[in-house]
């Protein structure tokens, strides 16, 4: 019997073929778009922050100021105040939106009569453009002709200058944001709840969980990754929120409602300090990055395997 093993010499390595570079080739367009659309503007913002450029002048003539904008920013109490406003805004809106969105999702999850109609009505605010949201609420909150003061007047409450008082205006933007974004949490959570395996939920009933234990120990932990995604998206949104506040209050009174993004907008376009505004944008990117990173540390929803 001839020994065939000796005639077969295994190749030292896998012979080259197109399939080895295929995957890289396929992600190339995505990477290109990402670099051009995401990374380039960030680098550009950073670059701009090193110059003192005014619109209408040649950028080539703009004086290089190095880190002067950044140094000014670190000592600028307006910037810190606006970060503080943003954090407070984020805390109140996100926690109330999460609570309301999750509660409503839990209530409307069951296919009871009329729930689907209510669900549709309920997500309407999400479909309204932020500019329109700002306009609607600006007129509702208007001190002189607004409905809110009108109806409060009907029950004998003195008219209030909703958008002209620091704490009332803050309340107004929080309220408007909740009005607009609770539906977002609601849809995401209700989608997550409906995808939960029914047997696990039944198992917890048999295990003796009462209504709130059922929600707290089983349902919510099981949609944890969805809650995290919702939280992350809202948090990033808070730092991007601009249109509604711009129209509703313009950041006022004072800086009571001037979120960081609006502060940047006002610096860049109202007071024409583009370089300085860019420096603050860089700070914004850093803050959002750190917050997102912290949340992803708590549990990366993208890395988890599908739950059984």
């Amino acid at each position, binding site marked *: 019997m001839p020994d065939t093993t000796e005639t077969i010499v295994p190749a030292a390595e896998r012979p080259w073929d197109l399939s080895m570079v295929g995957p890289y080739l396929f992600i190339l367009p995505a990477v290109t778009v990402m670099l051009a659309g995401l990374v380039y503007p960030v680098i550009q913002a950073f670059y701009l922050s090193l110059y003192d450029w005014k619109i209408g002048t040649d950028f080539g003539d703009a004086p290089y100021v190095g880190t002067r904008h950044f140094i000014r920013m670190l000592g600028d109490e307006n910037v810190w105040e606006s970060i503080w406003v943003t954090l407070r805004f984020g805390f109140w809106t996100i926690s109330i939106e999460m609570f309301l969105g999750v509660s409503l999702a839990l209530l409307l999850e069951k296919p009871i009569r009329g729930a689907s109609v209510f669900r549709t009505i309920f997500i309407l605010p999400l479909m309204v453009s932020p500019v329109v949201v700002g306009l609607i609420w600006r007129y509702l909150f208007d001190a002189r002709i607004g409905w809110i003061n009108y109806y409060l007047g009907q029950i004998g409450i003195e008219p209030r200058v909703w958008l002209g008082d620091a704490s009332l205006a803050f309340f107004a933007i929080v309220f408007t944001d909740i009005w607009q974004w609770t539906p977002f949490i609601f849809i995401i959570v209700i989608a997550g709840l409906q995808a939960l395996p029914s047997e696990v939920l*039944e198992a917890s*009933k*048999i*295990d003796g969980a009462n209504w709130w234990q059922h929600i707290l120990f089983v349902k919510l932990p099981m949609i944890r990754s969805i809650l995290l995604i919702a939280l992350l998206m809202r948090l990033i949104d808070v730092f991007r929120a601009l249109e509604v506040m711009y129209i509703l209050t313009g950041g006022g009174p004072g800086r009571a409602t001037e979120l960081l993004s609006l502060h940047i907008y006002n610096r860049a376009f109202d007071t024409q300090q583009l370089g300085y505004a860019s420096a603050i944008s860089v700070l914004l990117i850093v803050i959002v990055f750190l917050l997102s990173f912290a949340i992803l540390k708590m549990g990366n929803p993208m890395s988890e395997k599908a*739950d*059984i």
Partner: protein
Amino acid sequence: MSGVQLVDVTKSFGAVNVIPPLNLSFAEGEFVVIVGPSGCGKSTTLRMIAGLEPVTSGAIQIAGKDVTWARPKERDIAMVFQSYALYPHMDVAGNMSFALRLAGTPKDEVRRRVHAAAEMLELTEYLERRPKDLSGGQRQRVAMGRAIVRDAYCFLFDEPLSNLDAKLRATMRTELAILHRKLDRTMVYVTHDQIEAMTMADRIVIMEKGHVQQVGTPREVYNSPRNLFVAGFIGSPSMNFLDAELRADGPRVTGQGFDLPLPPRLREAVDGHRSRQVIVGLRPEHFAAPRTDGGTEASSLAPVDLGVKVAEYIGSSQFLAADIGGRQISAAIEVGPDSAPLTSGTYLFDTNRIYLFDETTGDAIT
């Protein structure tokens, strides 16, 4: 009255009635298997016992208490689901102890019982793993463990083995039977697999389209199937059914390609009947090869001509796909492991094992 009782229980989904009035009674400590094809209402029945599905009418009693409208946690039951239904966000210990923790059991007690159950199920080394890091069999055992630590009055199983591979399923069947003996609790087990029913049950409930077809021990339902459905459902491979003429002279049954004398048991049953059309039932395993050693044939064995199409060798037996007078049947012939492939010819059938069924009602003639 202890155990589990269902009294005139019905269930409708809208206008569709899926369970007609149903009466069942399980004794305390009994292992009952409810078996039937999918859609027969067995799972709905189990879920009504568990309290996951409200009854439309009727009453359910567990351990002598009326629990018809009680919530699941008030019924003193534990349940194992087909998908195991483990909590993905808890580790094995957490899954097993969840019910105890909810009930406010002291920590030491919880730990002791979880460890005892884990020991019994050989899960001790996996206590800190999440379900997603376990194999199917291990998950199955965790689901089992979760039920065991409860020490409930009644255990409910909803097709718990159907997601396992065949070998594991056989092992788990044995383990479940052992477990039942150890725990000595009432167990209600739902499956569509008659082997599970036969191997584990003290009593089998066979259901079809919401109706109970027969209740009995494995022996009873195998040996004395009450009707065509039970006869066909219990036993593997399934019983062969052939149209035949019952002839009062003899008495005997004849049909295309066979002519079999009735055994004494049936002779009495058909005594006084006139000749008529019946359905005759022959189990595959009651066929036998013709004796080649020239010994005397037992009086109960009658010759049958089989046209063999395929002979499947499975070790000590061969499964035949054959025909009798043009009708397709199957037969399992014990011929020993060294036999040559069987061919067409005259085989024997044990006439003691003949079943007769009424042509119109399908009920067994006994």
